[in-house]
């Protein structure tokens, strides 16, 4: 069955290749740091299951220390100049879009069909991982097509991948690190403490106040945890079920749907939602780490108010 057992070793090999190529990059004064960093990350994917939980924790700590000590540089693999790219774009023209479009098309087809494939009655692809497997297959297919169509050197995929990986740098690990932080917070009971706190300060006698407290609480708690999924059970149990739904008879479907979207407003506002907010700033080489958050903050703020109004009008129609 194709699933994580196929995806993780492949990811390990790619990160390992980034590490090896970094080690020989004379243009990067911090090449050793890069090599060790991506090498350790590769270890996590290749043999992480055999390291034990503490081993993986120590590995994560080592990765954070390397990044925190400023030992990550930006490698400079040989690539095409902007003049060469202008010329190549004229030569290849619209064909350049083909591999780029192949990615979403393959993801779509893969997500729809991979689950149904089976060999001798056993599923070929782990249904739970179908989208992830589809994304990996799409990336492989697009790389191969681009390499053939545009006659790219054999070293190009890994060297170009490393070029972009170094631009993202430590931010690439942040989403996974934050997920682990969420687990520690859960063990420590952080969510429950905040939920009790919000429930404690929410006024119980006004419908609008309860709705506002729930939506605002979802946004603020999501900002603090980086994830609306962590905020939802805590605040819905603490505020929505007893008050908005229980006391004021709000329609649970409306309340929960809009409550979750209020949490998403918080996601737009927090650096803790790293893969949405910090990673693109690195990928687009923005000087301000928080420029994306700044750009979406007004939309998030207005949408939070809109959600309060929508919940207050739509949830109590009876």
């Amino acid at each position, binding site marked *: 069955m194709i699933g994580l057992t196929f995806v993780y070793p492949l990811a390990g090999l790619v990160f390992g290749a980034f590490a090896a190529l970094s080690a020989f990059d004379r243009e990067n004064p911090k090449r050793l740091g890069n090599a060790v960093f991506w090498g350790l990350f590769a270890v*996590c994917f290749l043999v992480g299951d055999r390291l034990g939980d503490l081993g993986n924790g120590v590995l994560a700590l080592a990765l954070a220390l390397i990044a925190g000590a400023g030992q990550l540089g930006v490698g400079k693999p040989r690539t095409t100049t902007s003049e060469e790219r202008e010329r190549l774009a004229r030569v290849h023209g619209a064909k350049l879009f083909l591999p780029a479009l192949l990615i979403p098309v393959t993801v779509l087809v893969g997500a729809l069909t991979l689950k149904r494939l089976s060999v001798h009655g056993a599923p070929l692809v782990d249904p739970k991982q179908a989208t992830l497997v589809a994304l990996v297959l799409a990336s492989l297919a697009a790389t191969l097509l681009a390499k053939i169509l545009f006659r790219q050197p054999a070293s190009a995929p890994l060297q170009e991948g490393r070029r972009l990986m170094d631009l993202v740098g430590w931010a690439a690990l942040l989403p996974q690190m934050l997920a682990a932080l969420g687990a520690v917070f859960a063990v420590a009971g952080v969510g429950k403490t905040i939920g009790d706190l919000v429930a404690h300060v929410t006024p119980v006698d006004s419908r609008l106040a309860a709705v506002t407290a729930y939506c605002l609480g979802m946004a603020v708690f999501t900002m603090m945890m980086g994830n609306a999924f962590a905020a939802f059970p805590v605040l819905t149990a603490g505020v929505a079920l007893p008050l908005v739904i229980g006391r004021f008879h709000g329609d649970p479907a409306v309340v929960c749907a809009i409550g979750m979207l209020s949490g998403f407003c918080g996601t737009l506002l927090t650096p803790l939602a790293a893969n949405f907010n910090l990673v*693109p700033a690195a990928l687009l080489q923005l000087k301000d780490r928080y420029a994306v958050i700044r750009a979406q903050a007004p939309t998030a703020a207005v949408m939070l108010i809109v959600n309060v109004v929508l919940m207050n009008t739509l949830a109590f129609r009876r």
Partner: protein
Amino acid sequence: MLTLLGVLVVMLGFALRFNPLLVVIAAAMTSGLAAGLSPIEVLTVFGKAFRTNRYVSVAWLVLPAVGVLERAGLKEQARTTILRLKAASAGRILIAYLALRQLSAALGLTQAAGHAQTVRPLLAPMTEAAAEARAGGALSDNSRERVRAMSAATDNVGLFFGEDIFLAIGSILLIVGFLDQSGLTVEPLALSVWAIPSALAAFVVHGARLLLFDRGLVKDEVGE
């Protein structure tokens, strides 16, 4: 209550711009120790979750494809294509992308677009080219940064206010499961239907901002 100190560490650490990876470890240690765990126990819990969440980082496997395409001139081609459209402006391109992203996410295609696979190689070069064409020359660093940031922001808004219309998305399943445990039965369809008003509002709100964004850019460039 002391466990909340971890949240404080996160907020301060990010505000003071320490390396976020270190901030995360420090916050985990703070909350873990406050909850009575030993440092070794904290590292164990952290390491276990770090390992089980590896799938989050698998998405980086898309980078080699994007890099090869950039090497072959994809960004330049994206620019050329946009410059042929005389009516294109940064705001209008982003509005079209917002609609596409919301619709595709509503169909469950959340992974079809994203910051690595669409925003960096296609969307950002297109909006930049359109903004340059309008400004009649190269953009100031400030405007360039704003155009790029708004491209990424539009991808996020489109994704967040589209995906909840899809029945089988994680958040919908989470809500159904949670309410079920609390003794309330809610159909996934009811939840996705009630995500539509917010989705429409998000399109109007962010779309209006994008139209204003165009005007702001022109003013910015003339002013300098």
